[in-house]
């Protein structure tokens, strides 16, 4: 009986349950989320204004006439539960994005920014 108790004690202390949590961020710091969307005005704001305000983009796309600037931040988070017989891990990746379209003269034609942390 003592051996059984000893085994149970060892099992409880050395191979007991555990949990995992980690998070990571990758990409451009989302300064656009701190700005009022009214900062950007279609037909008025220029490409230089956006670059000055938001910074260097993740991606620049050359359009037939004009350009697009694309900003991206990935937030990933993983939560794990380790029980001896059952283990679970949930990993989520959410993105904060901003996109700006400019005409050939470099003037803003359309734009969209994600709102709130991890918004689409």
């Amino acid at each position, binding site marked *: *009986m003592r*051996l*059984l108790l000893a*085994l149970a004690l060892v*099992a409880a202390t050395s*191979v007991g349950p555990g949990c995992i949590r980690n998070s990571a961020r*990758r*990409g451009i710091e989302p300064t656009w989320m701190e700005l009022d969307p009214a900062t950007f005005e*279609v037909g008025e704001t220029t490409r230089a204004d956006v670059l000055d305000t938001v910074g260097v983009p*993740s*991606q*620049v*796309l*050359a*359009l*037939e*006439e004009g350009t*697009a600037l*694309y900003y*991206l931040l*990935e937030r990933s988070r993983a939560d794990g539960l380790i029980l*001896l*017989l*059952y*283990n*679970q*891990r*949930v*990993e*989520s*990746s*959410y*993105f904060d*994005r*901003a*996109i700006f*379209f400019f005409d050939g003269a470099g003037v803003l*034609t*359309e*734009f*969209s*920014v*994600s*709102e709130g942390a*991890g*918004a*689409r």
Partner: protein
Amino acid sequence: MIRGLLLPMAAALSAACSVVELRIDRDLDLTLCESFTEGEASLGDVLASLGPPVEFGSRGGEIALLYESVRLKESQLGLSLGAVVRPDAGDYFKFSYGSSGTRRKAVLFLFREDHVLETVDTLQFEEPFGRSGSIQVIVTVDEVVGMGGLRATPDAFVDARELLNSIQWSQNSAHGALVELRGARNRMGQHAMDPSWDEADPN
């Protein structure tokens, strides 16, 4: 009595199951996506309603926006046969079984040169991604079902490294030139001449 308990305890401790879930982007509301009228809605309307897209591309003045959400679930069962047969045999034999499935939603918008919506199409499906079993004679921990394609790095994070890739890969994946679902197979369509993922994708 103690010996009688040891065997069931060893059997119980030698088996375990794991569930791994992967969620990429927030769940997509397809009814909202289908509410846009072709020939009327503008690029600005879609952006204002759905936010920035997951991927976008441009060809000859036309613009494509892709929105996508992915849910993937993988289940694994492991059993150390050696410990069940003989508690002192250790983990010389291990049986593993795993399966995974996906639930995916995607919407593709195509806009004309004047940024008016030409067409919108939605995709929603659930599919078993694969299942696999193995018996190992040594103890290893590995992914049972390959999910590398779905975990690919967004194009926006692939910058100058593309210059080091083979010319076919660089031409096809160059910024914004190609809009495709996560995990799309290579060696088909625009990727017909690509080397395999393992050979060419540095991510």
